[in-house]
């Protein structure tokens, strides 16, 4: 069995990512994007640096200009990005877009992978229709028309939707609203007639969009994978996405925790450092212990995904569930232990809480994934 440690190459990538995010996308960058309501929502110069380092193509096959370095590697990048709350198209395009095309794309569609790897082509996955993640709850309809389809419906919580060059949309070609079969994935040009993409503002200052499809005509070549058979690749894609979001949560939780411990060592109350209070020490020790569990689960989930392990779905859900739970704990405790300072916008600790919740919710929260783990384990 593969050892639960990083290879030297993976560690090198992690170190490189840490350097990049620390220097090119520190927390202050996100703060600036938020304060200025930056229309793009990320800093192109930083994205160019990330692309130069090959990060956008980490999961892309070499034949399409990527490094095919695997999920463990990409996961290190996601984790390090979580530490600085870095805003970039990496998740929407480099993870979700790349893997959607790899999992279900035909040769012609896979050409997009070249653009993903060189950072020029951005994608967004438009699947949720309500506030809570329910990937089978697809009311958006795709009706056959000529050789192609006409799409009607609306999507919400679409990461990087308003900057995407291609939308990957789930729509129903048959079956009832919650049926597993009958879902088809489509590649939709956001500039096509009938598509409205509206950016919505969230506490984390990141990019999410509402997408409305009003009689949007697409050709037969817009179908990604098989008609009616979109559930299977979508679920695999969501496993991958969940694992990478768990890695981001791990990064942001670890950083929030480190900052909190550092604050405990510098803040005095009653004439002593608050780090000397045993009640706080035990809470910190508990959090550290929890973070260690998350670390193991995230790493294992990636290894299982890379190995095509049959437990990969269960492990990805377990990792997302636990990472969500621990992120909620650590960001709440982080603010609490920063006291009044934690409540001010001036301190960064609140930003970690504001980023944590959307990531927790994205592709399913603790409850969604705990339910899924139970289901996969047969109870």
């Amino acid at each position, binding site marked *: 069995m593969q050892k639960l440690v990083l290879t030297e190459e993976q560690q090198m990538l992690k170190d490189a990512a840490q350097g990049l995010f620390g220097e090119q996308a520190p927390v202050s960058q996100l703060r600036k994007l938020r304060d200025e309501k930056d229309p793009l929502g990320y800093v192109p110069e930083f994205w160019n640096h990330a692309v130069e380092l090959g990060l956008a193509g980490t999961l892309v096959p070499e034949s399409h200009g990527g490094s095919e370095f695997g999920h463990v590697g990409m996961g290190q990048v996601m984790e390090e990005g979580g530490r600085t709350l870095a805003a970039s198209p990496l998740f929407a395009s480099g993870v979700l877009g790349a893997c959607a095309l790899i999992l279900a794309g035909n040769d012609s569609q896979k050409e997009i992978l070249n653009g993903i790897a060189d950072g020029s082509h951005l994608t967004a996955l438009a699947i949720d229709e309500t506030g809570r993640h329910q990937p089978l709850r697809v009311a958006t309809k795709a009706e056959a028309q000529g050789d192609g389809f006409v799409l009607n419906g609306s999507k919400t919580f679409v990461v990087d939707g308003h900057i995407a060059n291609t939308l990957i949309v789930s729509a129903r070609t048959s079956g009832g609203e919650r049926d597993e079969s009958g879902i088809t994935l489509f590649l939709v040009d956001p500039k096509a007639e009938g598509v409205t993409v509206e950016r919505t503002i969230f506490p984390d200052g990141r990019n999410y969009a509402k997408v409305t499809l009003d009689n949007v005509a697409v050709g037969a070549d817009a179908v990604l994978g098989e008609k009616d058979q979109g559930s299977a690749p979508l679920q695999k894609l969501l496993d991958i996405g969940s694992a990478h979001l768990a890695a981001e949560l791990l990064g942001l939780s670890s950083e929030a925790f480190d900052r909190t411990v550092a604050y405990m060592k510098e803040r005095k*109350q*009653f004439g002593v450092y608050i780090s000397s209070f045993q009640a706080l020490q035990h809470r910190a020790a508990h959090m550290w212990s929890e973070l260690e569990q998350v670390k193991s689960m995230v790493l294992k989930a990636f290894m299982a995904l890379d190995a095509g392990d049959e437990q990969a779905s269960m492990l990805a859900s377990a990792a997302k569930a636990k990472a969500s739970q621990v992120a909620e704990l650590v960001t709440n405790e982080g603010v609490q232990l920063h*006291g009044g300072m934690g*409540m001010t*916008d001036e301190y960064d600790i609140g930003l970690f809480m504001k980023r944590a919740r959307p990531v927790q919710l994205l592709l399913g929260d603790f409850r969604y994934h705990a339910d899924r783990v139970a289901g996969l384990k047969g109870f």
Partner: protein
Amino acid sequence: MTDLDTFRQETRAWLEENCPQSMRSPMKSDKDVCWGGRNFKFQSEDQRLWLERMADKGWTAPDWPTEYGGGGLSREQHKVLLEEMARIQARPPLNSFGIWMIGPAILKFGSEALKQQHLPPIVRGEIRWCQGYSEPGAGSDLAGLQARAEDKGDHFIVNGQKIWTSYADKADWMFALVRTNPDVKKQEGISLVLFDMETPGVSTRPIKLISGESPFCETFLDDVRVEKDQVVGEVDKGWTIAKYLLTHERSMIGNMGSTAAGQKTLAELAVDAVGLEDGKLADPMLRTEIASWAIDSIGYELTAERAKDQAKSGQGVGNVSAMLKLAGTELNKRRYELLVAAYGSEGLLWEGDDRPAGALPQEWLRTKGNSIEGGTSEVQLNIIAKNILGLG
């Protein structure tokens, strides 16, 4: 007919006649709150009238003595007044830290001159007060405060910095804890002083919170002159009054655990957001958590009620305000985490008028302060452990 019945009849009639129609509906937002003060802009003539009429009867401070402008009502009459106001959904005529905080302290500890000077303008909503307790370096360790008041004979010169002063930028006067004697045990050299915010050397800066709002300020005190007759109680003995006020504040913040009348319960909101399946909340895991919350919430509300009833019956349960503050604020934080979970991404929409959950993201973030302000949860646990359980 008892006297109380007569009082009820008269009150009902008076309210019927004097409470403007537009003041007979729940407030829609913070903007509908009347805070009074020199610079307050009334939202409407009705709002001004309602304050004026209630103040004339002393009913902005119904249980204060009439000699200082209060209503002079007995406990039972006060209750009747509140019930009759609730009956017609009358809005509170005045929100006031003067009535809630410094007024009671002056009544209990202040000189006759201070009462004469400050209480009537508070009742009439003419002067708006703010609280100067916390300092950047002294959070939970309130008694460690550093703002220094130097004795200059008939006055003090105060230098220092206060933080978490609610609406300091809108207030007319401040009541503040300052250090008048640095050479004794920290609790023994503190005084409670009053000064006008227009005194030279006073400046304020709003603090932006993680919720994006700025209800609090930092206040800078540079060579601020405070007259000696503006000390409440004795010089150097302010800590006793501070503790009295903190207990008071704790009870107010602790109330957050309750679901206000008319407000939808967590479960009702969750049903709105998630829906029912076979009569049960559609997400069984969330249902488990909300059921657990609902049970704790019942426990909290009943405990608050029991504490009041016991106090009335003279069966003091002692330092329960610490426990209620602890339980109430932790409950409120859980409530909002569960609301975010129930609404999902729709509940995190930061802007816009047609958000399904309204200002939930801001409210959720604001609750995080509940267990910090008015004494952190950790301080409340310390109080329970030491004062109630005798652990140490």
